[in-house]
Protein backbone atom coordinates (compact mmCIF):
# COMPACT_ATOMS: atom_id res chain seq x y z
CA UNK A 1 0.00 0.00 0.00
CA UNK A 2 2.88 2.31 0.88
CA UNK A 3 4.42 1.64 -2.51
CA UNK A 4 1.13 2.27 -4.28
CA UNK A 5 0.81 5.65 -2.57
CA UNK A 6 4.30 6.64 -3.67
CA UNK A 7 3.56 5.70 -7.25
CA UNK A 8 0.25 7.53 -7.16
CA UNK A 9 1.91 10.62 -5.76
CA UNK A 10 4.50 10.46 -8.54
CA UNK A 11 1.70 10.47 -11.12
CA UNK A 12 -0.03 13.34 -9.40
CA UNK A 13 3.13 15.39 -9.20
CA UNK A 14 3.97 14.73 -12.82
CA UNK A 15 0.62 15.87 -14.15
CA UNK A 16 0.57 18.88 -11.84
CA UNK A 17 3.94 19.84 -13.22
CA UNK A 18 2.90 19.59 -16.84
CA UNK A 19 -0.36 21.44 -16.10
CA UNK A 20 -2.67 18.53 -16.91
CA UNK A 21 -4.60 19.25 -13.72
CA UNK A 22 -5.15 22.77 -14.96
CA UNK A 23 -5.80 22.64 -18.66
CA UNK A 24 -7.95 19.51 -18.92
CA UNK A 25 -10.55 20.71 -16.35
CA UNK A 26 -10.50 24.16 -18.01
CA UNK A 27 -11.21 22.58 -21.39
CA UNK A 28 -14.16 20.65 -19.95
CA UNK A 29 -15.59 23.72 -18.22
CA UNK A 30 -15.26 25.72 -21.44
CA UNK A 31 -17.06 22.98 -23.36
CA UNK A 32 -19.72 22.87 -20.67
CA UNK A 33 -20.34 26.63 -20.74
CA UNK A 34 -20.35 26.94 -24.51
CA UNK A 35 -23.28 24.62 -25.18
CA UNK A 36 -25.91 26.42 -23.01
CA UNK A 37 -24.64 29.80 -24.19
CA UNK A 38 -24.89 28.99 -27.88
CA UNK A 39 -28.32 27.42 -27.36
CA UNK A 40 -29.46 30.55 -25.56
CA UNK A 41 -28.12 32.95 -28.17
CA UNK A 42 -28.88 30.71 -31.14
CA UNK A 43 -31.68 32.86 -32.55
CA UNK A 44 -29.55 36.00 -32.17
CA UNK A 45 -26.55 34.37 -33.80
CA UNK A 46 -28.62 33.25 -36.79
CA UNK A 47 -30.10 36.72 -37.10
CA UNK A 48 -26.72 38.44 -36.95
CA UNK A 49 -24.55 36.17 -39.00
CA UNK A 50 -26.80 33.84 -40.94
CA UNK A 51 -27.37 34.79 -44.57
CA UNK A 52 -31.13 34.98 -44.25
CA UNK A 53 -33.17 36.84 -46.85
CA UNK A 54 -34.47 40.21 -45.80
CA UNK A 55 -37.64 39.98 -43.77
CA UNK A 56 -37.35 36.29 -42.99
CA UNK A 57 -38.84 35.49 -39.62
CA UNK A 58 -36.61 33.37 -37.44
CA UNK A 59 -38.78 31.15 -35.38
CA UNK A 60 -36.74 28.54 -33.60
CA UNK A 61 -38.38 26.95 -30.59
CA UNK A 62 -36.26 27.49 -27.47
CA UNK A 63 -34.50 24.27 -26.45
CA UNK A 64 -35.40 22.47 -23.24
CA UNK A 65 -32.91 22.00 -20.42
CA UNK A 66 -32.68 18.28 -21.15
CA UNK A 67 -31.82 18.98 -24.78
CA UNK A 68 -29.08 21.39 -23.86
CA UNK A 69 -27.52 19.04 -21.31
CA UNK A 70 -27.73 16.13 -23.72
CA UNK A 71 -25.96 18.35 -26.25
CA UNK A 72 -23.28 19.06 -23.66
CA UNK A 73 -22.73 15.35 -23.10
CA UNK A 74 -22.37 15.03 -26.87
CA UNK A 75 -19.66 17.72 -26.84
CA UNK A 76 -17.83 15.94 -24.03
CA UNK A 77 -18.06 12.75 -26.03
CA UNK A 78 -16.41 14.29 -29.07
CA UNK A 79 -13.83 16.89 -28.07
CA UNK A 80 -13.57 15.94 -24.39
CA UNK A 81 -12.92 12.28 -25.03
CA UNK A 82 -10.45 13.05 -27.81
CA UNK A 83 -8.50 15.38 -25.52
CA UNK A 84 -8.46 12.90 -22.63
CA UNK A 85 -7.34 9.95 -24.73
CA UNK A 86 -4.64 11.95 -26.51
CA UNK A 87 -3.41 13.39 -23.21
CA UNK A 88 -2.99 9.95 -21.67
CA UNK A 89 -2.06 7.84 -24.69
CA UNK A 90 1.56 7.77 -23.59
CA UNK A 91 0.97 7.16 -19.91
CA UNK A 92 2.80 3.80 -20.08
CA UNK A 93 3.93 3.58 -23.70
CA UNK A 94 6.02 6.78 -23.52
CA UNK A 95 7.69 5.60 -20.32
CA UNK A 96 8.55 2.37 -22.10
CA UNK A 97 10.22 4.25 -24.92
CA UNK A 98 12.16 6.81 -22.90
CA UNK A 99 13.45 4.26 -20.41
CA UNK A 100 11.62 5.48 -17.31
CA UNK A 101 9.77 2.19 -17.07
CA UNK A 102 13.00 0.19 -16.83
CA UNK A 103 14.23 2.52 -14.10
CA UNK A 104 11.01 2.18 -12.12
CA UNK A 105 10.69 -1.57 -12.49
CA UNK A 106 14.38 -2.15 -11.75
CA UNK A 107 13.38 -1.51 -8.16
CA UNK A 108 11.16 -4.12 -6.54
CA UNK A 109 7.98 -2.45 -7.75
CA UNK A 110 4.96 -4.65 -8.30
CA UNK A 111 3.48 -4.40 -11.78
CA UNK A 112 0.08 -4.36 -10.16
CA UNK A 113 0.91 -1.23 -8.16
CA UNK A 114 2.57 0.49 -11.08
CA UNK A 115 -0.36 0.00 -13.42
CA UNK A 116 -3.22 0.56 -10.98
CA UNK A 117 -1.65 3.75 -9.60
CA UNK A 118 -1.57 5.12 -13.13
CA UNK A 119 -5.06 3.87 -13.83
CA UNK A 120 -6.63 5.39 -10.71
CA UNK A 121 -4.88 8.68 -11.34
CA UNK A 122 -6.17 8.85 -14.92
CA UNK A 123 -9.70 8.04 -13.79
CA UNK A 124 -9.64 10.63 -11.01
CA UNK A 125 -8.46 13.33 -13.39
CA UNK A 126 -10.95 12.36 -16.11
CA UNK A 127 -13.93 12.10 -13.77
CA UNK A 128 -13.20 15.32 -11.88
CA UNK A 129 -12.71 17.24 -15.14
CA UNK A 130 -15.98 15.89 -16.45
CA UNK A 131 -17.87 16.64 -13.23
CA UNK A 132 -16.55 20.21 -13.15
CA UNK A 133 -17.52 20.76 -16.77
CA UNK A 134 -20.92 19.21 -16.28
CA UNK A 135 -21.56 21.27 -13.14
CA UNK A 136 -20.74 24.42 -15.11
CA UNK A 137 -23.11 23.29 -17.88
CA UNK A 138 -25.91 22.60 -15.39
CA UNK A 139 -25.40 25.99 -13.72
CA UNK A 140 -25.59 27.83 -17.02
CA UNK A 141 -28.52 25.75 -18.22
CA UNK A 142 -30.56 26.49 -15.09
CA UNK A 143 -29.62 30.16 -15.34
CA UNK A 144 -30.44 30.58 -19.03
CA UNK A 145 -32.84 27.87 -20.12
CA UNK A 146 -34.77 26.52 -17.18
CA UNK A 147 -34.65 24.16 -14.25
CA UNK A 148 -34.17 20.39 -14.41
CA UNK A 149 -34.65 17.84 -11.69
CA UNK A 150 -31.62 17.12 -9.53
CA UNK A 151 -31.89 13.34 -9.74
CA UNK A 152 -31.96 13.42 -13.54
CA UNK A 153 -28.75 15.44 -13.63
CA UNK A 154 -26.95 13.27 -11.07
CA UNK A 155 -27.88 9.92 -12.55
CA UNK A 156 -27.08 10.96 -16.10
CA UNK A 157 -23.71 12.21 -14.84
CA UNK A 158 -22.98 8.95 -13.02
CA UNK A 159 -23.83 6.85 -16.06
CA UNK A 160 -21.72 9.05 -18.27
CA UNK A 161 -18.85 8.74 -15.76
CA UNK A 162 -18.96 4.98 -16.13
CA UNK A 163 -18.59 5.28 -19.91
CA UNK A 164 -15.70 7.70 -19.40
CA UNK A 165 -14.04 5.24 -17.02
CA UNK A 166 -14.49 2.47 -19.57
CA UNK A 167 -12.78 4.45 -22.33
CA UNK A 168 -9.93 5.63 -20.08
CA UNK A 169 -9.37 2.09 -18.77
CA UNK A 170 -9.09 0.93 -22.35
CA UNK A 171 -6.62 3.73 -23.05
CA UNK A 172 -4.41 2.81 -20.06
CA UNK A 173 -4.51 -0.91 -20.87
CA UNK A 174 -3.62 -0.41 -24.52
CA UNK A 175 -0.90 2.03 -23.57
CA UNK A 176 0.58 -0.65 -21.30
CA UNK A 177 0.43 -3.40 -23.91
CA UNK A 178 1.40 -1.53 -27.06
CA UNK A 179 4.74 0.13 -27.66
CA UNK A 180 3.44 3.13 -29.56
CA UNK A 181 1.34 5.79 -27.84
CA UNK A 182 -0.14 6.83 -31.18
CA UNK A 183 -1.34 3.31 -31.86
CA UNK A 184 -2.84 3.09 -28.35
CA UNK A 185 -4.74 6.34 -28.86
CA UNK A 186 -5.94 5.28 -32.29
CA UNK A 187 -7.14 1.87 -31.09
CA UNK A 188 -8.94 3.43 -28.11
CA UNK A 189 -10.69 6.08 -30.17
CA UNK A 190 -11.58 3.58 -32.90
CA UNK A 191 -13.16 1.26 -30.31
CA UNK A 192 -15.10 4.13 -28.75
CA UNK A 193 -16.28 5.21 -32.18
CA UNK A 194 -17.38 1.70 -33.21
CA UNK A 195 -19.27 1.25 -29.92
CA UNK A 196 -20.96 4.63 -30.34
CA UNK A 197 -21.95 3.92 -33.95
CA UNK A 198 -23.32 0.52 -33.00
CA UNK A 199 -25.39 2.10 -30.23
CA UNK A 200 -26.90 4.57 -32.70
CA UNK A 201 -27.68 2.22 -35.58
CA UNK A 202 -28.43 -1.05 -33.81
CA UNK A 203 -29.44 -0.17 -30.25
CA UNK A 204 -31.46 -3.36 -29.86
CA UNK A 205 -28.54 -5.61 -30.74
CA UNK A 206 -26.10 -4.04 -28.29
CA UNK A 207 -28.28 -3.36 -25.26
CA UNK A 208 -25.53 -4.19 -22.78
CA UNK A 209 -22.70 -2.55 -24.67
CA UNK A 210 -20.70 0.23 -22.95
CA UNK A 211 -21.45 2.44 -25.96
CA UNK A 212 -25.11 2.40 -24.97
CA UNK A 213 -24.29 4.21 -21.73
CA UNK A 214 -24.08 7.55 -23.54
CA UNK A 215 -27.51 6.88 -25.02
CA UNK A 216 -28.89 5.84 -21.60
CA UNK A 217 -27.49 8.92 -19.88
CA UNK A 218 -29.05 11.22 -22.50
CA UNK A 219 -32.36 9.38 -22.35
CA UNK A 220 -32.37 9.63 -18.59
CA UNK A 221 -32.15 13.41 -18.96
CA UNK A 222 -35.25 13.38 -21.15
CA UNK A 223 -37.36 10.75 -19.46
CA UNK A 224 -36.17 10.70 -15.86
CA UNK A 225 -36.41 6.93 -15.60
CA UNK A 226 -34.09 4.10 -16.62
CA UNK A 227 -34.47 2.80 -20.12
CA UNK A 228 -34.86 -0.88 -20.92
CA UNK A 229 -31.36 -2.38 -20.70
CA UNK A 230 -30.00 0.43 -18.51
CA UNK A 231 -28.85 -1.84 -15.68
CA UNK A 232 -27.53 -4.45 -18.09
CA UNK A 233 -25.32 -1.79 -19.66
CA UNK A 234 -24.07 -0.62 -16.29
CA UNK A 235 -23.23 -4.14 -15.09
CA UNK A 236 -21.59 -5.24 -18.34
CA UNK A 237 -19.44 -2.10 -18.47
CA UNK A 238 -18.32 -2.41 -14.84
CA UNK A 239 -17.47 -6.06 -15.51
CA UNK A 240 -15.55 -5.18 -18.66
CA UNK A 241 -13.52 -2.56 -16.82
CA UNK A 242 -12.53 -5.16 -14.23
CA UNK A 243 -11.69 -7.79 -16.86
CA UNK A 244 -9.67 -5.38 -19.01
CA UNK A 245 -7.64 -4.18 -16.05
CA UNK A 246 -6.93 -7.72 -14.77
CA UNK A 247 -5.95 -8.91 -18.24
CA UNK A 248 -3.72 -5.88 -18.78
CA UNK A 249 -1.88 -6.41 -15.47
CA UNK A 250 -1.35 -10.10 -16.27
CA UNK A 251 -0.17 -9.51 -19.83
CA UNK A 252 1.98 -6.53 -18.86
CA UNK A 253 3.77 -8.62 -16.24
CA UNK A 254 4.41 -11.43 -18.70
CA UNK A 255 5.56 -9.02 -21.36
CA UNK A 256 8.12 -7.50 -19.03
CA UNK A 257 9.21 -10.92 -17.78
CA UNK A 258 9.70 -12.12 -21.37
CA UNK A 259 11.75 -9.02 -22.13
CA UNK A 260 13.99 -9.62 -19.13
CA UNK A 261 14.47 -13.27 -20.04
CA UNK A 262 15.29 -12.43 -23.65
Amino acid at each position, binding site marked *: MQQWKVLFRKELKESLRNYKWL*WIPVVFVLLGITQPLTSYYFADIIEQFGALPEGAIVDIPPPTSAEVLAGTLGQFNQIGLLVLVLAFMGTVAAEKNDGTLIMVLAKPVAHFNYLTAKWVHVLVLAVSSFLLGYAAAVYYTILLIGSISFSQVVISALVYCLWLCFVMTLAVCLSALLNSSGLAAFATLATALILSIASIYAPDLVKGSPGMLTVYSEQYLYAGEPEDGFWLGVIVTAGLIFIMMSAAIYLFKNQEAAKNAG
Partner: protein
Amino acid sequence: MNELIASLQEVNWPLIAPLFLLSLILMITALVDCLKRGQTNGPKILWILVIVFINFFGPIVYFLFGRRNNE
Protein backbone atom coordinates in the same frame (compact mmCIF):
# COMPACT_ATOMS: atom_id res chain seq x y z
CA MET B 1 -19.17 52.70 -34.94
CA ASN B 2 -22.04 53.76 -32.71
CA GLU B 3 -23.85 50.65 -33.71
CA LEU B 4 -20.90 48.55 -32.60
CA ILE B 5 -20.75 50.24 -29.22
CA ALA B 6 -24.47 49.81 -28.78
CA SER B 7 -24.30 46.11 -29.57
CA LEU B 8 -21.34 45.72 -27.21
CA GLN B 9 -23.35 47.27 -24.44
CA GLU B 10 -26.17 44.90 -25.14
CA VAL B 11 -24.02 41.85 -24.47
CA ASN B 12 -24.61 40.31 -21.09
CA TRP B 13 -21.04 40.52 -19.81
CA PRO B 14 -21.41 38.65 -16.50
CA LEU B 15 -22.61 35.74 -18.58
CA ILE B 16 -19.82 35.79 -21.15
CA ALA B 17 -16.95 36.82 -18.87
CA PRO B 18 -16.13 33.31 -17.59
CA LEU B 19 -15.75 32.18 -21.19
CA PHE B 20 -13.12 34.82 -21.90
CA LEU B 21 -11.42 34.36 -18.56
CA LEU B 22 -11.04 30.60 -18.98
CA SER B 23 -9.81 30.95 -22.55
CA LEU B 24 -7.28 33.46 -21.29
CA ILE B 25 -6.11 31.10 -18.52
CA LEU B 26 -5.70 28.34 -21.10
CA MET B 27 -3.73 30.62 -23.41
CA ILE B 28 -1.47 32.06 -20.72
CA THR B 29 -0.65 28.66 -19.22
CA ALA B 30 0.28 27.32 -22.64
CA LEU B 31 2.30 30.42 -23.43
CA VAL B 32 4.23 30.32 -20.15
CA ASP B 33 4.96 26.62 -20.59
CA CYS B 34 6.08 27.17 -24.17
CA LEU B 35 8.39 30.07 -23.30
CA LYS B 36 9.93 28.30 -20.32
CA ARG B 37 10.59 25.12 -22.25
CA GLY B 38 14.03 24.73 -23.81
CA GLN B 39 12.85 22.95 -26.89
CA THR B 40 9.45 22.35 -28.35
CA ASN B 41 8.30 19.80 -30.84
CA GLY B 42 8.87 22.02 -33.87
CA PRO B 43 9.72 25.70 -34.16
CA LYS B 44 8.88 27.60 -30.99
CA ILE B 45 7.75 30.77 -32.75
CA LEU B 46 5.16 28.76 -34.67
CA TRP B 47 3.75 27.34 -31.43
CA ILE B 48 3.52 30.81 -29.93
CA LEU B 49 1.52 31.98 -32.94
CA VAL B 50 -0.73 28.92 -32.74
CA ILE B 51 -1.36 29.44 -29.01
CA VAL B 52 -2.11 33.14 -29.33
CA PHE B 53 -4.12 33.23 -32.52
CA ILE B 54 -6.12 30.02 -32.52
CA ASN B 55 -8.70 30.40 -29.82
CA PHE B 56 -9.42 27.36 -27.59
CA PHE B 57 -7.90 24.74 -29.90
CA GLY B 58 -4.47 26.39 -30.16
CA PRO B 59 -3.44 25.86 -26.52
CA ILE B 60 -4.97 22.36 -26.51
CA VAL B 61 -2.99 21.29 -29.56
CA TYR B 62 0.14 22.74 -27.98
CA PHE B 63 -0.41 20.83 -24.73
CA LEU B 64 -1.05 17.61 -26.62
CA PHE B 65 1.64 17.76 -29.30
CA GLY B 66 3.92 20.72 -28.68
CA ARG B 67 5.91 19.16 -25.89
CA ARG B 68 8.32 16.37 -26.57
CA ASN B 69 7.25 12.87 -25.64
CA ASN B 70 4.04 14.21 -24.21
CA GLU B 71 5.98 15.34 -21.14
